[in-house]
Structure formats: structure tokens, C-alpha cells
């Protein structure tokens, strides 16, 4: 086994365990932080797959913005901090486990049957090329995504505003 493979296996193992932590821990903050670790490990995996730009985007956007947003959300919704046994819905655990496991089996069966072999990565991803493709071939989805972000921005602000700023009902 090459070093490359060992590292990859190690990363995958860590990935699994942190993801497991996300969904099973009873501490809300621990779950969020575990997600941070999962995302970070995913970025490492991307680096191993020589998709550097995506890894960086992951770290910047995902960990940098989304997780922060999550933590803000946790704090605003007064999630009970510390160990809290009520975090899981016990009734759903069995059924959820069965369904999740069956989905896992299904997907792995499909994927294993579909793909096999090894890949050889010989060069890094050219970020310049990525930028060019993004702005020539994928310019239309690019612009649309910016619209989506605009909509999300406006929507988020509108939704989260305090009520007295909205029009009162008896003025209509």
C-alpha cells in the first residue's frame, strides 16, 4: 500500500466517525463542531483528489459562513446547551435506522456495481481553467446562482425581520 492510500483510508475513517458524531451526539454545539471537522476532512479529501479550488471554496464558504450561521441559529433559538438527552426523537430511532441503513445498502450496491478500478491523478487542477470554464461555459448557471443568492438574501432579511416593521394588519 502506498502512503497515498493509507492517508486516504485514514481520512475516510475520520470522516465516518465525525459524521457519526454529528448525528448521534446529544450536545448541540458538539454536533456543529463535528460538522466543522467533517467538512474540513472533506476538504482534505478534495485536496487528495487534486481539486484544490473546491477544497478552498469549501473551507471558506462552508466552514467560514455556513457553520457560523448555524452557530448563530443555535444561539438565537435558545437551543439547550450542554448535554441534553432530549435532543433525539426516540420514537423515530428504530425506523430511522432501518431506513438509513437500507438506503446505505442500496446506494453502495448501485455505486459498487457502477464503478470500480483505480484512478491515477497526475496533475493538479488548473484554477485558471476552472475560472474560464465557469465564466464561459457555465456563465448562465453562474448568473442564475447569483440571482438565487440575491433572493435568498432578500428572503432571509424579510423573513427574519421583527414584526413591527411589517405592515399592520388593520392598515390593509
Amino acid at each position, binding site marked *: 500500500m502506498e502512503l497515498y492510500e493509507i492517508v486516504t483510508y485514514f481520512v475516510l475513517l475520520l470522516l465516518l466517525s465525525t459524521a457519526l458524531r454529528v448525528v448521534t451526539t446529544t450536545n448541540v454545539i458538539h454536533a456543529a463542531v463535528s460538522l466543522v471537522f467533517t467538512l474540513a476532512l472533506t476538504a482534505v479529501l478534495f485536496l487528495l483528489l487534486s481539486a484544490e479550488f473546491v477544497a478552498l471554496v469549501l473551507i471558506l464558504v462552508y466552514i467560514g459562513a455556513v457553520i457560523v450561521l448555524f452557530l448563530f441559529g443555535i444561539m438565537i433559538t435558545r437551543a439547550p446547551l450542554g448535554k441534553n438527552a432530549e435532543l433525539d*426523537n426516540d420514537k*423515530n430511532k428504530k*425506523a*430511522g435506522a432501518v*431506513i438509513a441503513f*437500507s*438506503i446505505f445498502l*442500496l446506494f453502495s*450496491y*448501485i455505486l459498487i456495481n457502477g464503478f470500480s478500478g483505480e484512478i491515477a491523478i497526475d496533475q493538479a487542477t488548473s484554477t485558471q481553467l476552472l475560472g474560464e470554464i465557469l465564466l464561459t461555459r457555465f456563465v448562465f448557471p453562474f448568473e442564475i446562482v447569483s440571482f438565487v443568492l440575491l433572493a435568498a438574501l432578500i428572503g432571509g432579511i424579510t423573513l427574519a425581520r421583527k414584526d413591527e416593521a411589517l405592515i399592520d394588519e388593520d392598515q390593509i
Partner: protein
Amino acid sequence: MVIDKVNLLAESKITYGDGGVLAEYAWILVVLPFISALLITFTGKKLPYKGAEIALATIGSIFVYSTALLYQHITEGIVNEFFVGVGSIGSFDIEFGWVVDGLSIMMYFVVGTVALLVFIYATNYMKGEIRYTFFFTSLTLFAGSMLVLVSSPTLIQILIGWELVGVCSYLLIGHYWEIKENSSAAMKAFITNKIADIGLMIGIIILALNTGTLRISEILYQSTHDYEAIKNVAFLAGVLLFIGAMGKSAQFPLHVWLPDAMAGPTPVSALMHAATMVTAGVYLLARMFPFYEGIAHEALEIVMLFGVITLIAAGLIAIVQDDLKKVLAYSTVSQLGYMIAAIGSGAYTAALFHLWTHAFFKALLFLGAGSVIHAVHTNSMLEMGGLRKFMPRTFTTFIIGTVALAGLPPFAGFFSKDEILASLNHEGETTFLIISIIGAFVTAFYMTRAVALTFLGEYRGHGHPHESDKMMTVPLMFLSVFAIGAGWVNIPGIYTGFTTWVTTRANAIIEHHPESFDYAALFSGLAAGLIGISLGYFIYQIQASAENGDKAIKVEPIWTVLENKYYLDNFYFKYLINPTKSTISNAIDRFNTNVIDRIINSFGIVASFLGQVVYNNFDQKGIDKLLNALSTGTDNLGGKVKLLQTGKTQQYIMLFLAGVVTISLLILFII
């Protein structure tokens, strides 16, 4: 058409025409009364004369047409018959049609004339009576039915006309049916006729089966040309047909309906029970005369026997009657006996000649009696009397009719009665001849008695009699003209036109035609009539006053028998009607109530029980339960299914994913 000179002494014409247009359209005579009967039914009540004008117009046109036919027959002679086929039963063709020959034309003329005068009389007589419009409908229907009968070329049409006149007779006799007696009288007439009709129908069937045809002319042809098949059944058929004639023409013992039929209004009695309906039997025998003369000779003996019995029996009863119309009724029965006896002795023309004259003077007598009854409002002669002063015209015409009936020259009855007596003498039937002469005496006697009780003497009643209206007396005067002159058309040795008329037929009539008067018969008949009149006048006017005259001749046992009409009605009731009523009718009634009704009721009970069972078991327990279970089940199912909607997002996602997994597995591994 061959025009032949009128030969005064001619026998039946050798050459005759086919009648041309008049004969071809003679069906109008038959059809017109039915159409106008319908018209009167539907529009009569709204008309100013309440339908009488339609009836008068109809019968007037019939009179005119029949007179035209008679004139053409006198000048040229018509023998023709027309057929209209309406289908067939097996090998027999059912045909209707009309005959235009001597016998039929004579009958048309009689019906037309007498009916016209009776109709005119009736418009006044029945004024103000109940059901005036319906009365004229029935009278017109009757005229039509009689014409159907006398114009029929097939036995089927005779039967239909026969039954139709029976129905009309029933309707008219029972005109005042609110009184039970009248409806019973109508029923009696109808049922008696129906019993006689059995004979007629069986006779027709026998004739039809043995000749293979229903056409009268063909049956007569086969009778006179020696066909084998008809020879075997001739006697039987002849007797059976005569039984039918007995019912209609009131021969003993089936005459019992005619006196009771006087319950109807007097115009009805005058028209039907004097001139037309009761002569249907004589007409039938006359129409079938070649058959009788040809091969059913023995049947004629029976015919003659019954005719003679009738004429003397009815005549005797007439002496003891106190009801004016009943006297005339029994007189009619008696005169019908004369006609039947004449046919029985083979005197075709004599019988028809007596029919002809009798129609006129008997109608006259009845209408006169009606005029009297209209004035004094009672039928009983015991409450009349002395009406000569109050009703001169009625009295005169009644006397003319009486003398005609009694048979004094030169009135009509003399010639016809004389011919009958002459024929009886010629055949050598001495016993019957003597009985007939006695009958002539009796006729004159009871008629004189009737005249004396009604018109002579002093008025015994309580009313205020007065002469009748012109519309009633004018027909009387016309009829008296006929009563005087009708006999002059057949004077042996001088002018025998009538013989020529009635013997001009498709099948030749073989009979004896007297060359001159038979003086023996003539004088004995004349003497009998004169003695009868004088004896009657003596007893009822001269010796004692009218109502006491009875006492002079009352021989107690005979008088009682006569008054009870030979106990014939009692006999019928005791041995025929009551046994049928009490045994058969009761048995049938009990069968009907207990058996048939029970069966039908049980059907109903079973059906309703079944319905109840089905309702309870199937409907309530079965189907309703099923439907209820369906709806409850759906409700429960829905109630359980709705629990899926918990509102919890995670459970929705769970179910969704479960479905995804299932379908993916299905697609991967099964499909």
C-alpha cells in the same frame, strides 16, 4: 238493361236488370244509419231538436232511396248482389255485402216507410222524456241493423244483423230502465232471443260445413240442384234455422218476451214489435225458401205446426188482456203465426204479403194506441172509454186498422189473410185451415172488444183526454192510407204485382200461384171476421156496457188459464230459470268466490309475504348491512389512514424514503 213491360198477371220476371247505379250504391242504405247514429251520439244534445233532425233526415233519405229502388224494381226488375270480403277462416271466406232483389227491396221499403212515420211520431211522443237523444240514437241504430239483416247476402251478415237488432231491442225496451220491470223485460227479450239464436247459429254452422260456403245464393243453388252433402243435413238445418226464427218472430213457446216488451215506449213497439224486428224470422225463412222447398220439405211441416199453434194460442190470450198494448202484442204474435204457417204450407208470397200488410196496419194500431195512452196516461183499458168524442182522428184511424186486421174487404188484411187461407186449403191442410179460420174469428173478436173498451161507452178515467198533436196524427193518417191500399198490390186474377216483386230473385221460387180467388177460403175468412166483429160489438156494447162484457163470456177455468198465459212463464221460471239460478249460478258463484278468488288472493298474499321476507332478510339484513358495512368500513379505514397525517415532518420524510427504497428495489431487482 232490358226494359220489360209490366205484365199484370206475370209470374216472376224472366228478364231483369242488374239495378245499375241505384243497386251499386245501395250500401248507403245500410251504412248511413250507423254514421248518423254516431253523429247523433256526439252532436245530438247540442242541436235544437236534440238529434231528432239527424234521425229524421237519415230515415227520410232511406225512405226516398228505397222508394226509388222499388220503382226501378217495378219497372225493370233488379236482381243483384255485391260482396265485400273481409278475410277468411280456414276455407270459408267471410264476406259482407248487400243484396238488391225483390225480397230485399220489399223489406227496404217496409222498413223505410214505417220507420219514417214512426220517427215523425216519436219526435212528438217522446218530447220531454228522459234520454231523448239516446232514444233516437238507438232507433237509428235499429234501422241500420234491420237493414243490415235484410240486405245480407251471406249467413254471417244475417247473424250479425240478427244480433244487432237484438241489442237495439234490448236498449229500446229498457229505455225506462229505472223501473225494474222494464229492465227485466228487456233482459227477458234478449235472453229468450239468445236461446233461440243457439239454434240459428248451429243451423248456420251445419249449413256452412256441408256446403263449403257462407253465401246464401250458393247454398240455395246447391239446395235446388241436388247436391249430396246438403241433403243429409237439410232437415236438421231447416229445423234449427226455424228455431232461430221462432225466437225473433215470437212463435210458441218462445213468444213470452213479446208481451213484456210492451214496457218500452210505444214508438218502439210500433216499429220493432209490429213491423220490422219480429218479421226478421219470417224474412229468414223467406230468404231460405228455395232451401226449404227444395230439400227440407219435412222441416216445413214443423214450421206450419208451430205457426198454427201460435196463432190460435196467442189469439185466445188476447181476449183476456186488460192492457191495450198487450192486446196488440198478442195480436202481433198471432199474426206472425199466420205468416209462419203460410211459409210452412209452402206459400212464400202469401206470407210475405201478410208481412207487408201487417206491418202497415199493426204499426197504425200501435201508434194509435200510443196516442190514446199519451192522452190518458194509462195503459189499462179499464180506465179508458168514450174516447171517441175526445180523439176523433185517432178513433178513425184505429177503426181502419182494426178492420184491416180483422180482414174485411177492401182493406189490406182481407187480401193477405185470404191468400194464406187459400194456400192452406190448396195444400189440403184442413185441420190447420179450420184452426186458422177460428183464429180469424178470434182476431176480430178481441179487436172489437179492445175498440169497445177504449173508444166506445163513457169515459171511466180521471184525466182530461184530448186529441194528440198533428205530428202524431199525421203519421196515423198516412199509415191508414197504407192500411187501406196496401192490399191492392196482389189481387189474384186482377193484379199480382207483389208476387212478381218478391219472386224476382236469383233462385227461383217454386210455389202455387192462385189464378183467382179461392172462394171457399175467402168466404170462410170473411164470415169469421164479420161474426167476430158483430159478436164482439154485441157483447161489449149492446148487451152490457163495455167493462161488464167480460162477465158474459167468462168461463172461469179457461179464463184463468188464459190470464196466466197458459202458465208458460211459471213453467219457465220453475223448471228453467230457478234451477239454473239456484244450482248452477250459485255453484259457479261459490266456485268463483271460494276457489278462484282464493287463488288470486293467495297469489297476492304469497307475493306480499315474499316481499316481506325479502325485505327483512335481503334488504335489511343483507343489502343494507352490506352497504352500511361498506360505508362504515370506509369510514374506519379512513379513520385509520388519517392517522398517517401526524403533521410531523420527520414522519413524512420517513414514509417518503421508505417508498423510495421500495420502488428502487423494485426497479433494480424485479423490473
